[in-house]
Protein backbone atom coordinates (compact mmCIF):
# COMPACT_ATOMS: atom_id res chain seq x y z
CA UNK A 1 0.00 0.00 0.00
CA UNK A 2 2.73 2.44 1.03
CA UNK A 3 4.72 1.60 -2.08
CA UNK A 4 1.79 2.06 -4.40
CA UNK A 5 0.90 5.43 -3.00
CA UNK A 6 4.55 6.44 -3.21
CA UNK A 7 4.75 5.52 -6.86
CA UNK A 8 1.50 7.36 -7.63
CA UNK A 9 2.78 10.56 -6.06
CA UNK A 10 6.18 10.08 -7.67
CA UNK A 11 4.55 9.76 -11.05
CA UNK A 12 2.44 12.89 -10.57
CA UNK A 13 5.54 14.82 -9.56
CA UNK A 14 7.73 13.68 -12.42
CA UNK A 15 5.12 14.02 -15.15
CA UNK A 16 4.26 17.49 -13.93
CA UNK A 17 7.91 18.44 -13.87
CA UNK A 18 8.40 17.07 -17.35
CA UNK A 19 5.55 19.15 -18.74
CA UNK A 20 6.87 22.21 -16.92
CA UNK A 21 10.23 21.73 -18.54
CA UNK A 22 9.09 20.90 -22.04
CA UNK A 23 5.67 22.46 -22.64
CA UNK A 24 5.53 25.07 -25.35
CA UNK A 25 2.73 27.07 -23.77
CA UNK A 26 3.79 28.71 -20.55
CA UNK A 27 0.30 28.49 -19.10
CA UNK A 28 0.43 24.71 -19.45
CA UNK A 29 3.80 24.77 -17.80
CA UNK A 30 2.38 26.70 -14.87
CA UNK A 31 -0.47 24.28 -14.39
CA UNK A 32 1.86 21.31 -14.64
CA UNK A 33 3.96 22.93 -11.95
CA UNK A 34 0.88 22.95 -9.75
CA UNK A 35 0.65 19.17 -10.03
CA UNK A 36 4.35 18.82 -9.34
CA UNK A 37 4.06 20.76 -6.14
CA UNK A 38 1.04 18.73 -5.12
CA UNK A 39 2.90 15.47 -5.75
CA UNK A 40 5.88 16.68 -3.76
CA UNK A 41 3.55 17.47 -0.87
CA UNK A 42 2.34 13.88 -1.06
CA UNK A 43 5.92 12.62 -0.95
CA UNK A 44 6.51 14.70 2.16
CA UNK A 45 3.63 12.96 3.87
CA UNK A 46 5.12 9.63 2.89
CA UNK A 47 8.32 10.68 4.64
CA UNK A 48 6.51 11.56 7.88
CA UNK A 49 6.90 15.31 7.24
CA UNK A 50 3.27 16.30 7.65
CA UNK A 51 3.92 19.90 8.70
CA UNK A 52 6.13 20.42 5.69
CA UNK A 53 3.56 18.94 3.39
CA UNK A 54 1.01 21.47 4.55
CA UNK A 55 3.53 24.25 4.26
CA UNK A 56 4.38 23.12 0.76
CA UNK A 57 0.75 23.32 -0.29
CA UNK A 58 0.22 26.70 1.35
CA UNK A 59 3.38 28.41 0.23
CA UNK A 60 4.07 26.91 -3.15
CA UNK A 61 0.64 26.09 -4.46
CA UNK A 62 -1.09 28.99 -2.75
CA UNK A 63 1.64 31.59 -3.02
CA UNK A 64 4.52 31.15 -5.35
CA UNK A 65 2.57 29.55 -8.14
CA UNK A 66 -0.03 32.28 -8.07
CA UNK A 67 2.82 34.77 -8.20
CA UNK A 68 4.27 33.03 -11.25
CA UNK A 69 0.93 33.00 -13.03
CA UNK A 70 0.53 36.70 -12.29
CA UNK A 71 3.96 37.16 -13.78
CA UNK A 72 2.88 35.33 -16.89
CA UNK A 73 -0.20 37.44 -17.25
CA UNK A 74 1.56 40.72 -16.64
CA UNK A 75 4.37 40.08 -19.08
CA UNK A 76 2.61 38.30 -21.95
CA UNK A 77 0.59 39.92 -24.60
CA UNK A 78 -2.45 37.74 -24.16
CA UNK A 79 -3.94 36.50 -27.41
CA UNK A 80 -0.78 36.97 -29.29
CA UNK A 81 1.41 34.12 -30.40
CA UNK A 82 4.09 35.27 -28.03
CA UNK A 83 2.51 33.31 -25.25
CA UNK A 84 4.13 30.23 -26.69
CA UNK A 85 7.62 29.72 -25.62
CA UNK A 86 10.19 30.04 -28.26
CA UNK A 87 12.47 27.17 -27.42
CA UNK A 88 15.98 27.73 -28.60
CA UNK A 89 18.72 25.23 -29.20
CA UNK A 90 18.04 22.21 -27.08
CA UNK A 91 21.07 20.09 -27.35
CA UNK A 92 23.39 22.08 -25.10
CA UNK A 93 20.95 22.09 -22.15
CA UNK A 94 20.07 18.49 -22.88
CA UNK A 95 23.67 17.30 -22.78
CA UNK A 96 24.35 19.25 -19.59
CA UNK A 97 21.22 17.94 -17.88
CA UNK A 98 21.94 14.36 -18.85
CA UNK A 99 25.52 14.71 -17.69
CA UNK A 100 24.32 16.00 -14.34
CA UNK A 101 21.85 13.12 -14.10
CA UNK A 102 24.53 10.64 -14.90
CA UNK A 103 26.73 11.90 -12.13
CA UNK A 104 23.87 11.81 -9.62
CA UNK A 105 22.92 8.27 -10.64
CA UNK A 106 26.52 7.24 -10.35
CA UNK A 107 26.40 8.47 -6.79
CA UNK A 108 23.18 6.52 -6.00
CA UNK A 109 24.05 3.31 -7.76
CA UNK A 110 27.62 3.34 -6.61
CA UNK A 111 29.09 0.39 -4.78
CA UNK A 112 28.29 1.48 -1.26
CA UNK A 113 24.82 3.02 -1.38
CA UNK A 114 23.86 2.30 2.22
CA UNK A 115 22.45 4.22 5.13
CA UNK A 116 22.09 3.75 8.86
CA UNK A 117 18.77 2.87 10.35
CA UNK A 118 17.67 2.14 13.84
CA UNK A 119 15.95 -1.09 14.58
CA UNK A 120 13.05 -1.54 16.93
CA UNK A 121 15.33 -2.51 19.80
CA UNK A 122 17.24 0.76 19.44
CA UNK A 123 20.38 -0.57 17.81
CA UNK A 124 21.83 1.08 14.74
CA UNK A 125 22.54 -0.94 11.68
CA UNK A 126 23.61 -0.28 8.14
CA UNK A 127 21.10 -1.19 5.47
CA UNK A 128 20.94 -0.84 1.74
CA UNK A 129 19.39 2.38 0.61
CA UNK A 130 17.19 0.58 -1.83
CA UNK A 131 15.11 -1.06 0.84
CA UNK A 132 13.65 0.14 4.09
CA UNK A 133 13.61 -2.27 7.00
CA UNK A 134 11.33 -0.09 8.91
CA UNK A 135 8.39 -2.38 9.45
CA UNK A 136 6.00 0.45 10.17
CA UNK A 137 6.53 3.13 7.58
CA UNK A 138 3.36 5.00 8.67
CA UNK A 139 4.31 5.02 12.32
CA UNK A 140 2.75 8.11 13.78
CA UNK A 141 5.64 8.81 16.08
CA UNK A 142 8.85 8.63 14.14
CA UNK A 143 11.71 7.11 16.01
CA UNK A 144 13.57 10.38 16.37
CA UNK A 145 10.64 12.20 17.84
CA UNK A 146 10.67 9.77 20.72
CA UNK A 147 14.31 9.44 21.48
CA UNK A 148 16.81 11.72 19.86
CA UNK A 149 15.08 15.08 19.90
CA UNK A 150 13.44 14.52 23.25
CA UNK A 151 16.75 13.50 24.73
CA UNK A 152 18.40 16.60 23.40
CA UNK A 153 15.63 18.79 24.75
CA UNK A 154 15.73 17.07 28.12
CA UNK A 155 19.46 17.45 28.34
CA UNK A 156 19.28 21.08 27.49
CA UNK A 157 16.22 22.36 29.19
CA UNK A 158 15.56 20.37 32.30
CA UNK A 159 14.64 17.14 33.97
CA UNK A 160 12.47 14.62 32.14
CA UNK A 161 9.51 15.43 34.35
CA UNK A 162 9.40 19.02 33.30
CA UNK A 163 9.69 18.42 29.60
CA UNK A 164 6.46 17.43 27.98
CA UNK A 165 7.20 15.13 25.11
CA UNK A 166 4.81 14.72 22.26
CA UNK A 167 4.22 11.09 23.15
CA UNK A 168 1.08 9.95 21.40
CA UNK A 169 0.52 13.12 19.45
CA UNK A 170 0.75 12.85 15.73
CA UNK A 171 2.72 15.16 13.50
CA UNK A 172 5.89 17.15 13.66
CA UNK A 173 4.43 20.63 14.10
CA UNK A 174 5.12 20.81 17.83
CA UNK A 175 8.66 19.49 17.40
CA UNK A 176 9.38 22.07 14.78
CA UNK A 177 7.79 24.76 16.89
CA UNK A 178 10.02 23.89 19.83
CA UNK A 179 13.11 23.83 17.70
CA UNK A 180 12.28 27.19 16.20
CA UNK A 181 12.22 28.73 19.62
CA UNK A 182 15.28 26.91 20.92
CA UNK A 183 18.06 25.64 18.71
CA UNK A 184 16.98 27.48 15.58
CA UNK A 185 16.04 30.76 17.19
CA UNK A 186 18.77 32.79 15.55
CA UNK A 187 18.19 31.45 12.00
CA UNK A 188 14.49 31.92 12.58
CA UNK A 189 14.94 35.60 13.44
CA UNK A 190 17.37 36.12 10.60
CA UNK A 191 15.01 34.55 8.11
CA UNK A 192 12.20 36.77 9.38
CA UNK A 193 14.26 39.82 8.69
CA UNK A 194 15.25 38.42 5.32
CA UNK A 195 11.65 37.88 4.30
CA UNK A 196 10.73 41.39 5.41
CA UNK A 197 13.61 42.89 3.48
CA UNK A 198 12.80 40.89 0.37
CA UNK A 199 9.19 42.02 0.51
CA UNK A 200 10.20 45.65 0.81
CA UNK A 201 12.79 45.17 -1.91
CA UNK A 202 10.30 43.55 -4.24
CA UNK A 203 7.89 46.39 -3.70
CA UNK A 204 10.58 48.96 -4.38
CA UNK A 205 11.83 47.25 -7.54
CA UNK A 206 8.42 46.59 -9.04
CA UNK A 207 7.08 50.03 -8.26
CA UNK A 208 5.93 51.92 -11.25
CA UNK A 209 7.49 55.34 -11.81
CA UNK A 210 4.82 57.87 -10.98
CA UNK A 211 3.37 59.70 -13.95
CA UNK A 212 3.63 63.49 -14.07
CA UNK A 213 -0.04 63.80 -13.08
CA UNK A 214 0.49 61.63 -10.06
CA UNK A 215 3.54 63.68 -9.13
CA UNK A 216 1.49 66.83 -9.27
CA UNK A 217 -1.16 65.29 -7.03
CA UNK A 218 1.42 64.15 -4.53
CA UNK A 219 2.91 67.62 -4.39
CA UNK A 220 -0.41 69.33 -3.96
CA UNK A 221 -1.27 67.00 -1.10
CA UNK A 222 1.98 67.56 0.72
Amino acid sequence: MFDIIFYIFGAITLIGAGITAFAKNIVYAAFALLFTFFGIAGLYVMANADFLAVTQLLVYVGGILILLIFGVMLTSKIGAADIRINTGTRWVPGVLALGMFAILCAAFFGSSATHIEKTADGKSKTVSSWASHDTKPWSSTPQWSKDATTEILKKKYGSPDEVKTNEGSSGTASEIGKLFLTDFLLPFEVISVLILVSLLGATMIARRDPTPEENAIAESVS
Partner: protein
Amino acid sequence: MTVGLNHFLVIGAVLFVLGIYAMLSRRNVIAVLMGVELILNSANINFIAFSRYGGVNINGQMAAIFVIVIAAGEAAVALAIVLNIYKNFKSVNPSEVDSLRD
Protein backbone atom coordinates in the same frame (compact mmCIF):
# COMPACT_ATOMS: atom_id res chain seq x y z
CA MET B 1 11.06 -3.56 -3.84
CA THR B 2 10.14 -1.62 -0.75
CA VAL B 3 10.50 2.08 -0.98
CA GLY B 4 13.70 3.32 0.60
CA LEU B 5 15.98 6.33 0.67
CA ASN B 6 17.14 5.98 -2.92
CA HIS B 7 13.62 6.13 -4.31
CA PHE B 8 13.22 9.61 -2.91
CA LEU B 9 16.66 10.60 -4.08
CA VAL B 10 16.00 9.48 -7.62
CA ILE B 11 12.81 11.55 -7.78
CA GLY B 12 14.80 14.48 -6.44
CA ALA B 13 17.52 13.94 -9.04
CA VAL B 14 15.03 13.83 -11.90
CA LEU B 15 13.38 17.02 -10.68
CA PHE B 16 16.79 18.66 -10.43
CA VAL B 17 17.74 17.72 -13.95
CA LEU B 18 14.41 18.88 -15.36
CA GLY B 19 14.85 22.13 -13.50
CA ILE B 20 18.29 22.62 -15.00
CA TYR B 21 16.96 21.86 -18.45
CA ALA B 22 14.15 24.39 -17.98
CA MET B 23 16.57 27.04 -16.73
CA LEU B 24 18.91 26.63 -19.65
CA SER B 25 16.55 26.13 -22.54
CA ARG B 26 13.45 28.19 -21.93
CA ARG B 27 13.07 31.51 -23.68
CA ASN B 28 10.78 33.05 -21.13
CA VAL B 29 12.12 34.41 -17.87
CA ILE B 30 9.07 33.16 -15.99
CA ALA B 31 9.70 29.65 -17.23
CA VAL B 32 13.28 29.97 -16.10
CA LEU B 33 11.99 30.87 -12.68
CA MET B 34 9.80 27.76 -12.74
CA GLY B 35 12.97 25.76 -13.36
CA VAL B 36 14.53 27.39 -10.32
CA GLU B 37 11.52 26.38 -8.24
CA LEU B 38 11.90 22.81 -9.46
CA ILE B 39 15.52 22.75 -8.38
CA LEU B 40 14.66 24.11 -4.97
CA ASN B 41 11.98 21.46 -4.57
CA SER B 42 14.35 18.70 -5.54
CA ALA B 43 16.70 19.89 -2.82
CA ASN B 44 13.81 19.87 -0.39
CA ILE B 45 12.92 16.32 -1.29
CA ASN B 46 16.48 15.31 -0.53
CA PHE B 47 16.36 17.05 2.86
CA ILE B 48 13.14 15.30 3.76
CA ALA B 49 14.43 11.96 2.60
CA PHE B 50 17.54 12.23 4.70
CA SER B 51 15.43 13.42 7.57
CA ARG B 52 13.34 10.26 7.35
CA TYR B 53 16.04 7.69 6.53
CA GLY B 54 19.41 9.25 6.83
CA GLY B 55 19.82 9.91 10.54
CA VAL B 56 19.77 13.70 10.38
CA ASN B 57 16.43 13.56 12.22
CA ILE B 58 14.11 16.53 12.26
CA ASN B 59 16.90 18.97 11.43
CA GLY B 60 16.40 18.03 7.80
CA GLN B 61 12.84 19.28 7.96
CA MET B 62 14.02 22.52 9.55
CA ALA B 63 16.38 23.06 6.65
CA ALA B 64 13.56 22.38 4.23
CA ILE B 65 11.40 24.99 5.92
CA PHE B 66 14.12 27.57 5.58
CA VAL B 67 14.47 26.67 1.92
CA ILE B 68 10.73 27.19 1.39
CA VAL B 69 10.85 30.57 3.11
CA ILE B 70 13.80 31.72 1.07
CA ALA B 71 12.13 30.42 -2.09
CA ALA B 72 9.09 32.55 -1.32
CA GLY B 73 11.23 35.64 -0.88
CA GLU B 74 13.23 34.82 -3.98
CA ALA B 75 10.09 34.41 -6.04
CA ALA B 76 8.78 37.80 -4.97
CA VAL B 77 12.03 39.62 -5.72
CA ALA B 78 12.64 37.73 -8.94
CA LEU B 79 9.20 38.53 -10.25
CA ALA B 80 9.65 42.15 -9.39
CA ILE B 81 12.87 42.09 -11.39
CA VAL B 82 11.09 40.37 -14.25
CA LEU B 83 8.46 43.08 -14.30
CA ASN B 84 11.18 45.71 -14.44
CA ILE B 85 12.96 43.87 -17.23
CA TYR B 86 9.72 43.68 -19.14
CA LYS B 87 9.19 47.38 -18.63
CA ASN B 88 12.69 48.28 -19.85
CA PHE B 89 13.23 45.75 -22.65
CA LYS B 90 9.60 45.09 -23.68
CA SER B 91 10.55 41.43 -23.65
CA VAL B 92 10.86 38.51 -21.26
CA ASN B 93 13.26 36.57 -23.43
CA PRO B 94 16.50 36.21 -21.48
CA SER B 95 18.50 36.05 -24.71
CA GLU B 96 17.47 39.57 -25.57
CA VAL B 97 18.48 40.89 -22.17
CA ASP B 98 22.19 41.02 -22.83
CA SER B 99 23.21 44.45 -21.67
CA LEU B 100 25.48 42.65 -19.17
CA ARG B 101 27.89 42.27 -22.05
CA ASP B 102 28.70 45.93 -22.19
